[in-house]
């Protein structure tokens, strides 16, 4: 009885903010008075930057996750740091590293590259905060593959590349995809590090979360509308990644038998 009450409170607490957004948007006909141009620009920028971020995360993160799965190392703790770091700290750190007076930024400036306030800065911030989510999920996926399977392939004459290509990847791709989805969602929602490091300008650095924050006081309807799109994306990502991880587990179990 009590458990039911507490469960209901918890579930309601999580549902209410999203429901309130939906309610207000219907009540005020938010879509009619929204400044479409800003929402479109932010939506496009968010999709574009998160796509580039995902590409780089996949290229850099997959070998890393595989190494960590085969040879556990203290590095995994370091990799997970951005997950628990407050976004403002991440933004400040990126500024100190890549800002015009930063450790690397100073050097970049000499060859004519200035990152702050650029779309590239948005991508850097997204990669920094999202890559741990991908590496963590991918690593679990790689680890779930029984060593016996890989050993069997090796005994049958497959070299390391062939084992990776024909055994590991087919069994781990769902985990990789699930990791990509979670990382993508994190990149799409990135706010604190972006506003500090990349600034806020329509079409250049103003992604959807920044738009929600920047126009809140001037155009509440546009903010609500943008927020609703982000809520929808979040729902979709959660459902998809749950399906992917559960079927990945099933696939590995099947292969093991």
């Amino acid at each position: 009885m009590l458990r039911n009450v507490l469960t209901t409170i918890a579930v309601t607490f999580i549902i209410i903010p999203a429901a309130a957004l939906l309610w207000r948007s219907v009540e005020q006909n938010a879509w009619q008075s929204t400044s479409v141009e800003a929402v479109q620009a932010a939506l496009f920028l968010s999709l574009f930057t998160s796509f580039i971020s995902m590409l780089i995360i996949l290229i850099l993160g997959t070998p890393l996750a595989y190494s960590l799965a085969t040879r556990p190392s203290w590095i995994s703790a370091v990799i997970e740091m951005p997950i628990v770091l407050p976004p403002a700290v991440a933004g400040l750190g990126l500024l100190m590293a890549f800002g015009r007076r930063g450790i690397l930024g100073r050097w970049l400036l000499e060859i004519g590259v200035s990152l702050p306030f650029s779309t590239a800065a948005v991508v850097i911030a997204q990669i920094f905060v999202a890559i741990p989510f991908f590496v963590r999920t991918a690593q679990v996926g790689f680890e779930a593959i029984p060593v016996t399977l890989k050993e069997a392939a090796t005994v049958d004459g497959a070299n390391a590349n062939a084992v990776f290509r024909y055994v590991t990847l087919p069994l781990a791709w769902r985990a990789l995809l699930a990791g990509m989805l979670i990382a993508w969602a994190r990149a799409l929602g990135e706010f604190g590090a972006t506003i500090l490091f990349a600034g806020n300008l329509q079409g250049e650095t103003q992604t959807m979360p920044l738009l929600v924050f920047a126009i809140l006081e001037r155009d509440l309807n546009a903010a609500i509308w943008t927020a609703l799109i982000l809520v929808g994306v979040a729902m979709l990502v959660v459902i998809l990644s749950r399906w992917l991880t559960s079927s990945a587990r099933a696939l590995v179990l099947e292969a093991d038998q």
Partner: protein
Amino acid sequence: MRPSLHLLLLILLLLTSCQSEPDKNEIAVFAASSLTDSFNELATAFEANHTDTEIVFNFASSSQLAAQILEGARADVFASANEQQMQLLEEAGLVEGTSHIFATNRLVLITPEDNPADIQQVHDLARANTRFVTAVRGVPIREYTETLLAEYTEYDAIIENIVSEEANVRQVVLKVALGEADAAIVYATDVTADLTDQIRAIQLDAPTIPRYHIASLNANAFTDFVLSDEGQAILQKWGFDAP
């Protein structure tokens, strides 16, 4: 299950007890971010005279504060950096009595200490590749900056040079202090003693005079204190001019 109910009740009890200490009155002051330093000192002086009262602050852009109050945030005092945001609350019938102008400010052109883009006057902001930073539209400093720049023939070129629109004037100042932006137009009072070694300020002989408005939203003594001689002296110490 029993212990978890007790735990939940205990947590709720703790939360409500931080909300309202029975022996202390709380005055919630929503103030423009440019008032951060001066209002903190005003609060210390006020609390010294009213030991039973505690001032709690919410500093942000005046437009964001007005939006929060219109959405139902509990505020006892609103101090705005311009008239428009105060009018929004007056039109909504939230202001008790009338609002008062309690201080004025001046606009300055700021650059990082080393002035990498060699900005000496407003005209220089129009130079290609100058990184000019300001606040989001609706924030008072943005409106004052727009009014000032409208007097210049280079207006379009300067607006083109905006690299970022920040949430409030203090964030604008930060971007210049860090050396990320080349220049900004902010209030003279934003260049506080702590920042003089990071920022160069160029006085502007501008006709635009920022005026700060204050109003009580619920009866309280803090608004009167800001308007009193003692309050005015503290504001002037931080560089504000008398209304």
